[in-house]
């Protein structure tokens, strides 16, 4: 019985952790959207900033990956 409760908690936690991915999605969208609006205003400066764009996306996306990892850990490792 106790084991079942632990497992239930782990699954609920995994589901909750997946909400973090929504935050990452918002973050990545924010980065890309702002890059696009800036790039449309000054297209000549955009080409030099794609590296920054990808770094920003990677940082934002990494947090979503962390929450995914937490979900996986709760499901498979706890």
């Amino acid at each position, binding site marked *: 019985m106790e084991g079942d409760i632990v497992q239930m908690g782990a699954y609920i936690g995994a589901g909750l952790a997946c909400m973090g991915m929504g935050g990452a999605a918002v973050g990545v969208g924010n980065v890309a959207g702002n890059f696009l609006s800036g790039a449309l205003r000054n297209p000549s400066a955009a080409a030099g900033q794609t590296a920054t764009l990808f770094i920003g996306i*990677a940082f934002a996306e990494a947090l979503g*990956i*962390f929450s995914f990892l937490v979900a*996986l850990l709760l499901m498979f490792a706890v």
Partner: protein
Amino acid sequence: MSEAQGEGLVFHPMDQFIVKPLFGDGAVHWYTPTNAALWMAVSVVAIILLLVIGTRGRAVVPSRIQSVAELAYGFIHKMVEDVAGKDGLKFFPYIFTLFLFIVFSNFLGLLPKAFTPTSHIAVTAVLAMLVFVTVTVVGFVKNGAGFLSLFWVSSAPLPLRPVLALIEVISYFVRPVSHSIRLAGNMMAGHAVIKVFAAFAPLILMSGIGIAVTPLSILAITAMYGLEMLVAFIQAYVFTILTCVYLKDALHPHH
């Protein structure tokens, strides 16, 4: 590994990441040739095919393979030069090695039945620690104690500086963690999601609802596969460019 069961679907999204010996079923010792070793070797062979065999013509007007090799060379060379500066070019072979290994592992891992070495935290942690150690050593060798000025943000107001220094130190030591987990997590996530969708695919053999679910899941696998192609490249790119950024911090620590 999506086995349909009498009672329903069983998901084994993580089974694809199991490291097993190539020959026999014994324990995995450090020297055992495993599937991880096999796919690393395949990526080495692919790299040699592209960069050594592909360029053996040394043509001034390149063949297709040679121009791909030159493109990769120019891409990373420019990245190192732009981000880390001219004195970062000493580390170009090292960074190119990391990039090639990651990009080939990622793409070869997308082949059906393949194993993705970069989806394992053990592999990416070693890569990230190599970068971390290199950057730290280079920073101290090049700048001596001046490397510590990386953590002392001289443009901030004085009372804030100790707090910022603490944050900077923490973020410096978190770098290898995020660096490695980003790559492994992305690879693992994509492959696992594909496997989850794949587990829905045989539903058509078991119940009527499968007529709707199976095509959907196959479509979803296709879409995820396309996304994974993108992610495979972008993660290699991001790993490499972050290495360059860290290297720039080591070579020019002043903010």
